[in-house]
């Protein structure tokens, strides 16, 4: 699934990483628990989270995750965006709840890890 298709599906807006709209992701993972994210071994996944802080970005960086959706209408802070752009990560802001965001993407064919 292309990032630009994800934007349409979840009515998302790009807060960072405009240059990567043609990237493809195969799987999605939703969590607010950073240690959960750090146990994953899947590559090329999009992280859906309601936790919009700098730690989310650091955790994603360590876990080799480049694509992050901030659900629950969370907005990226300037510090978050500075770190994400330094890491060349894509940040998408989404107005919907975690449940709806995940449901829409799953319905559109984004795969689950387990």
């Amino acid at each position: 699934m292309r990032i630009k298709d994800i934007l349409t599906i979840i009515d998302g807006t790009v807060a960072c990483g405009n240059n990567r709209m043609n990237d493809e992701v195969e799987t999605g993972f939703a969590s607010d628990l950073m240690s959960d994210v750090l146990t994953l071994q899947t590559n090329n996944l999009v992280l859906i989270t309601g936790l919009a802080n700098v730690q989310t970005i650091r955790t994603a960086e360590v876990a080799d995750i480049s694509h992050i959706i901030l659900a629950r209408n969370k907005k990226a802070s300037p510090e978050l965006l500075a770190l994400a752009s330094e890491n060349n990560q894509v940040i998408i802001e989404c107005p919907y709840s975690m449940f709806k965001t995940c449901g829409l993407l799953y319905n559109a064919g984004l795969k689950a890890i387990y």
Partner: protein
Amino acid sequence: MHFTYLITGGNFTHAGHASSQVKRILKQLNVNPVTIKRIVVALYEAEVNVVAHAYRGNIDVDIEPERVLVLITDEGPGIADIELAMKEGYSTASPKVREMGFGAGMGLSNMKKNSDKLIIQSQVGQGTHVELTTFLTQ
């Protein structure tokens, strides 16, 4: 090659900074990406543990052609029962730490999974010492 970093307990703004630097160094050294991820995930869990549970600490990274050795030493409350602390789900994290997305009690077991050798030593009231070894052979 040898690198050292300082960690300040309680300061989440910089948590992960050292791990991120080490990741960059390992990339430059052309270590394979799967190994890099294992080393950096284990180090990051240890780094966040110092920020979340201790007062201050330091990280020593020693890179040799056949292995990477990471030592994380902190001054802090220490761990009374290491076996219990290793159990998935066991956590004494504060509400503030949980707000940052940590405190699932997964860190220590995740460090074990992502290293070839894990040694934890701790003295209650003094601090904790963690050694992570990853072999680079193959």
